[in-house]
């Protein structure tokens, strides 16, 4: 015990004797560990905000769209001709026992006019329980009702971005008349603000009208009974996967898809979206980690270099220690401890700088960053390991010196 404490004290003394040199030696480690900390915290922050955005799509929700997942991709529904119908949605509601609510949407690009203001966005025709499935309420006015649906009423619910673009701040939007594709609509509600989707689209840049109105007045019955998306919520989180299977089975039956044929629809759970987004951020994290690893490698080589210089400079000291009874291993450990102290101090400085940078990034750039204890511990352990790894060769060289030659060294 004595000897380890003494060695750490001696190592710190040796570092202090050459302050500038020690600092330069540590620089690689400081930068390496600092960037590891920044990268992990930015990566985790990004991941968590993406996961949050995905959960904001709806509670326990399934998305069903036209086209097979192989050919269609995430944005299906527009890429391929719609194959889903209102009847599919109604069948799901009736025949899939795990269903809680079902809604569907039919979209169209539309031009909106309110007074002298213009705004182009996609409008969606949907049902009265859309807000339940998406877990998304109005902040002003009311949502589309069964009554509006049945009578194909000319009513619209605006996303908050659309409302901002069509009306002056502070102006009462609910109750106003607007025109969608020149058809008059009355604004009956404004949705709560929801922010961006994982792919960066504005959730709030949207207009919702009754499906019946959409179908008859805006798309002109070009797509009778067809829908772009069906959204289904499960009765519980645990039933999401079961519901997915029930829906797939039912739709295959209804669309007459035999075993071996490709589905003409895709069912996605939010978990699948989350995983897809996770993959992207993982790639980013890996790339950044590679950068950090390279700077740690450079830092480690710097330590090896300085330790080799130090072993040569202190040949005589090594001879003295051996003469008074230090075994090879004692000398080895001494130089390993020194290399480790350098890289640990470098690691601690790097951690402090990394944490400060992460905080600065989230304050200045507004990115979400997560600083976690385990990433700090990991960085510290890692810097110690770098010291041991790169300190080993110089330390072994020191431990193998011949005592007499070492004592004779000038």
């Amino acid at each position, binding site marked *: 015990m004595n000897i380890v404490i003494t060695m750490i004290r001696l190592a710190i003394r040796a570092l202090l004797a050459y302050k500038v040199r020690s600092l330069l030696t540590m620089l690689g480690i400081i930068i390496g560990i600092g960037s590891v900390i920044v990268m992990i915290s930015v990566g985790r922050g990004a991941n968590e905000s993406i996961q949050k955005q995905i959960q904001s799509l709806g509670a326990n929700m399934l998305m069903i769209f036209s086209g097979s997942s192989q050919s269609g991709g995430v944005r299906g529904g527009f890429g391929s001709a719609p194959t889903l119908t209102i009847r599919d949605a109604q069948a799901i509601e009736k025949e899939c026992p795990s269903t809680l609510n079902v809604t569907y949407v039919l979209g169209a690009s539309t031009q909106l006019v309110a007074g002298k203001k213009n705004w182009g966005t996609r409008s969606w025709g949907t049902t009265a329980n859309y807000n339940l499935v998406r877990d998304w309420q109005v902040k002003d006015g009311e949502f589309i009702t069964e009554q509006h649906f049945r009578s194909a009423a000319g009513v619209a619910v605006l996303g908050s971005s659309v409302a901002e673009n069509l009306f002056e701040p502070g102006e009462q939007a609910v109750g106003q008349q607007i025109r969608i594709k020149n058809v008059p609509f009355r604004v009956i509600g404004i949705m709560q603000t929801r922010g961006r989707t994982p792919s960066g689209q504005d959730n709030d840049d949207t207009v919702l009208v009754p499906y019946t109105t959409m179908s008859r007045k805006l798309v002109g019955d070009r797509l009778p009974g067809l829908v772009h998306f069906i959204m289904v919520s499960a009765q519980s989180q645990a039933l999401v996967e079961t519901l997915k299977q029930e829906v797939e089975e039912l739709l295959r039956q209804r669309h007459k898809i035999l075993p071996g044929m490709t589905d003409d629809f895709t069912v996605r759970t939010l978990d699948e979206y989350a995983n897809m987004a996770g993959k992207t951020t993982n790639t980013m994290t890996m790339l950044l980690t590679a950068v950090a690893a390279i700077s740690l490698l450079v830092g480690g080589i710097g330590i090896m270099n300085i330790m080799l210089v130090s072993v040569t400079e202190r040949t005589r000291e090594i001879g003295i220690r051996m003469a008074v*009874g230090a075994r090879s291993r004692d000398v080895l450990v001494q130089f390993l401890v020194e290399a480790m102290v350098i890289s640990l101090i470098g690691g601690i400085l790097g951690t402090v700088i990394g944490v400060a940078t992460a905080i600065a990034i989230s304050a200045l750039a507004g990115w979400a960053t997560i600083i976690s204890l385990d990433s700090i511990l990991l960085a510290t352990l890692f810097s110690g390991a770098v010291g041991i790894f790169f300190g080993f060769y110089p330390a072994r060289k020191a431990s193998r010196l011949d005592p007499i030659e070492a004592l004779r060294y000038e």
Partner: protein
Amino acid sequence: MDKPVISFKGAKKIYPMAGESVEALRGVDVDIYPGEFLAIMGPSGSGKSTLMHIAGLLDSLTEGKYLFDGEDVSFISRDKQADIRNRKIGFIFQSFNLLARCSAQENVELPMLYRRPAESNLHEKSMEALRTVGMENRASHLPAQLSGGQQQRVAIARALINSPTLIMADEPTGNLDTKTGKEIMNTLASLHEEGITIIIVTHDHEVGQATRRRIFLRDGLIERDERQAQSSGLTSP
């Protein structure tokens, strides 16, 4: 009669060199007994330092036999050599060989750090050793803040710290003025009075006169082995 603490039989040391190898010891037979105060003398290049390094287990023989404290140490591992040096041998060098960044007291404690099993009362023991050589009020000084004679006293305290059976000194007065050299020799003589075996390598005849036995080397062989009769408490054959 005591057993010898050091016993060489046909000791040879050959330094392999490119071309012709150097035979530094060419068959040395010598026994050194506990409590002796002995000088190894001879001209430069005669093999004095080589003999001391091997006797002090800093180096190994090429040929022959070496018994230390009755144990055959001719071909033991480096770690065993280190342990014997640590517990039984104290070294004093011409150039003091103190660690420049460590205080006098820390230098004295150095051999204790490597002692197995470890000892706890480092500070008391090192202060006591410093007191023995009259350096107790310089304990926190760095070597650079001490005179040559003072540094050599610290080195003697370091040699004493693990209570060795043997102290080996290679030209201990070589870097000191005559007066200081005499003081160091007096210190060594008083340690000898206390029963410690002391071996001094020197080419200085005045230093040699202070000892009780002188071995003269020439070209790697013992030329002469002189004993002084009026020894006090000397147990030589």
